[in-house]
C-alpha cells in the first residue's frame, strides 16, 4: 500500500515538474517574443519583393513554355518525317509501342492477381 502511495506521489511530482518545465519553456519563448528586436521594413520594400518575384515567375513560365514547345515540335517533326519518308519504321514503332503497353499492363495485372 505504502509502495503504491509512494508511486502515486512520484507521479504527482513528475506531473508537477512536467508542468513546471512547460511553464519555463513558455516564459522563455515569451521573452524572445517581447525582447528580440524585429525591424519591419516599409511597404515599398515589400512591394519590390512582390514585383521581383512576379517577374521571376513570369520569366520561368516563358522558359518552361518555350522548352515544352521546342520539344513538342521536335517530336512532331520526327513523327511526321517517319510517316511520310519511312512509313514502315513508323508503323513498326506504332506496333512495338502498342504491344509494349499491353504487355506492361498485362504483367502488372498478373502480378497483382498473384499477390492477392
Amino acid at each position, binding site marked *: 500500500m505504502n509502495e503504491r502511495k509512494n508511486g502515486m506521489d512520484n507521479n504527482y511530482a513528475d506531473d508537477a515538474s512536467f508542468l513546471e518545465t*512547460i511553464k519555463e519553456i513558455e516564459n522563455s519563448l515569451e521573452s*524572445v517574443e517581447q525582447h528580440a528586436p524585429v525591424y519591419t521594413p516599409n511597404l515599398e520594400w515589400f512591394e519590390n519583393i*512582390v514585383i521581383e518575384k512576379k517577374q521571376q515567375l513570369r520569366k520561368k513560365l516563358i522558359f518552361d513554355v518555350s522548352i515544352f514547345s521546342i520539344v513538342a515540335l521536335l517530336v512532331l517533326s520526327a513523327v511526321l518525317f517517319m510517316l511520310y519518308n519511312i512509313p514502315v519504321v513508323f508503323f513498326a514503332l506504332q506496333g512495338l509501342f502498342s504491344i509494349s503497353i499491353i504487355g506492361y499492363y498485362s504483367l502488372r495485372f498478373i502480378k497483382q492477381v498473384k499477390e492477392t
Partner: protein
Amino acid sequence: MEEGELIKSAKSGDKRAFAMLFHQNYSFLVKYLMKVTMNPDTAEELAQETMARCIEKIHLYQGKSKFSSWLITIATNLYIDQQRKKKREKNWQQQEDLYRKLKWQLESRNEEWTDALSALGKIADNVRIPIILKHYYGYSYDEIGEMMKLSSGTIKSRVHNGILAVRKELRLNE
C-alpha cells in the same frame, strides 16, 4: 482594408495588397522563425523565402486557417526542407554557435538567456517546432500534424519526449 479583402485582391494580382499583407504579418513571422531557428539571420532569410513562396502559391490558400497560420506552415516546411538538405550534424557546439546572436540580442536588452532556451536549442528541430507550436502558439496536435504533414500521434509523442528532454537538461543544469 481587411485581411479577407487584401487576400482577395492579392489573388487577383494586386501587388500593393500583397505588400500590405506581408507588412502586417512580417513581425509575427520573423518572431516565430526566431523561436524555431534560434537565429535572427536565418529567421529573416526564411521570412523572405516564405513570402516568395506565398506569392507563388497564393491560389492554393483557401482561407480555412488564418493567413498567419498559413504563412507559418509554409515557413515551417521551408525550414525543415532546408535542414534536411543541409544534413547538418547536430553538434551541441554548432547549435550553441547558432543561437549566440539571439542570446546576445536578448542579453543586450538586459533579458536573461534562460536554461530552458539553451535546452530548446539543443533538441532536434522536428521536436522543437511542435513544442513551440503547441505550448507557445496554442495549436492543437491535429493542426500541427497538418502543418508538418505528420500524424497527430507522432506530434504528441514528439512534444512529450521533447519536454522530457528539456526537463532533463534543466535538472542537469541545476
